[in-house]
């Protein structure tokens, strides 16, 4: 701009003009009613966002995703060396598993005749099919590990103590639900690995006194693993257990805040 003011007869150079045009377009867009209706005050995409304490608060308060967080947290709570991000990573892996899992559902039929063939054609016929299945598989194992490590981390910090006792109980539930999700998913490829791992696993279940045999019968849909088992475990894996675990996660996250944020420092 300074250049043009000094010599009004010469036009600004092309890069400058492009930059100006870009700026004008951005201004026009950010001034539009459409834009301001989407991005609430404090959004970093709104015109005139400045890094002020007020806007830092608005970023959290006015975002449906971020408002899981409080506006401010204790300083030690943002130290990665304290939490190792394990709870957050478990949640993020759950999201990653949901996304990759939805992709896999498009190509999979839970019947004993189709399941294995569907997976095989997923490997060979579907663009990125193998990659997405790999990611789903490894992320699942990783989530079991991160949830387990999160539990260990919370224990060693004594974070289960008052007032967070109940949230620890919810967390143990979440650990079990994670294991159940991993285990029900294990059967779905319907290969030798899946069949026999689940056979061994469900045989152990049968040892539970009083109701062990009945629970096993209901879960398998019979005395041994078959087509009914596959359908049941599919529904458990893609619908029922995710539904339940989301409820428990909601309680878990809500209680973290209600109980005064994360614990510590030691």
């Amino acid at each position, binding site marked *: 701009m300074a250049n043009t003011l000094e010599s009004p007869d010469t036009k600004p150079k092309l890069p400058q003009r492009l930059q100006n045009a870009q700026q004008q377009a951005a201004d026009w867009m950010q001034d539009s009613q459409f834009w301001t209706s989407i991005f609430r005050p404090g959004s970093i995409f709104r015109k005139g966002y400045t890094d002020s304490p007020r806007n830092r608060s608005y970023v959290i308060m006015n975002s449906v995703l971020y408002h899981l967080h409080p506006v401010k947290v204790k300083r030690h709570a*943002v130290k990665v060396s304290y939490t190792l*991000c394990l709870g*957050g990573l478990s949640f993020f892996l759950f999201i990653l598993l949901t996304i990759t899992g939805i992709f896999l559902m498009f190509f999979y039929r839970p019947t004993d005749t189709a399941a294995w063939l569907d997976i095989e054609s997923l490997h060979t016929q579907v663009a990125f099919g193998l990659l997405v299945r790999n990611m789903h598989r490894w992320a699942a*194992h990783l989530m079991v590990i991160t949830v387990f490590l999160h539990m260990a981390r919370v224990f060693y910090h004594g974070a289960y103590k008052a007032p967070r*006792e109940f949230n*620890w109980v919810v967390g143990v539930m979440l650990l079990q639900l994670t294991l159940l999700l991993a285990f029900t998913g294990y059967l779905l490829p319907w290969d030798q690995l899946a069949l026999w*791992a689940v056979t061994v696993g469900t045989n152990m279940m049968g040892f539970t006194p009083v109701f062990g045999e009945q629970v096993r019968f209901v879960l398998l849909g019979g005395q041994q*693993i078959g087509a009914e088992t596959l359908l049941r475990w599919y529904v458990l894996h893609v619908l029922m257990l995710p539904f339940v675990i989301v409820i428990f996660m909601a309680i878990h996250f809500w209680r973290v805040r209600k109980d005064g944020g994360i614990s*510590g420092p030691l």
Partner: protein
Amino acid sequence: MTEIPEHLLRRSAEARARATGAPAAGEGEAPAAAQPDDDDGVTIPRSLLEASQQPGGAPAVAGMAAYGTPQAGSGPAGGGGVATALPPLMAGPAGNTHRLLTVVKSGSIQDVKASPGDKVHVWPHLLAAEFTAALFITAFTLVFSLFINAPLLELANHNETPNPSKAPWYFLGLQELLTMFDPMIAGVTIPGVALILLAFAPYVDKNPSLRPEDRKFAISIQTIHLMFWAVLVIIGSFFRGQGFNFTYPWDTGLHGIFHL
């Protein structure tokens, strides 16, 4: 209702009197003359007080009583130095027309229970860390998946039992226990007690301290517990061969290591 200190009440009365044109105690020396007598030396620092006593002097020090009052020493002749009828505009050192009566430290008149604490904004401090962690784990999963495929063995066959048959790795601890104890103990009692104790840990552990040096017993027990399962899972994963008999991984090889 908090009580207003006596000397502030008196000073405000004098100021009001000056503003309405009624003669105050003296020629601009009024606040100076009034103050030192009842100066209890508690509320107003002496330096500020003295600055306020100098007519027209040291305006930058912001003598409290001098705000908004006519500068007595150079006062207009008409009123004989007594205050003008209207409060003058732009009379203070910074052009202020209002007066700062006093500064009250928090805690002196209110009972502060919660200290502000050391807090930081979630945006950007926490969100940036979370975003980085999410990126990192996505990249790790993606790269790992590019190089190592998820297993897909032959079609499930009820008539052909693989040897060994193993549960998923997270249940291998249980399977390992089953080789050692009766199913009632290995499959039910031990995991049941472990799980219940784990869930009810907060109600069993009554020690309120968070410091590791105060929690030696709890930490030891939990470490033994976690190591117990970890060792069993490792044995089940790597040290069990044909017929679930004990073997060394270097004897059988690790070719099936990613058959998870």
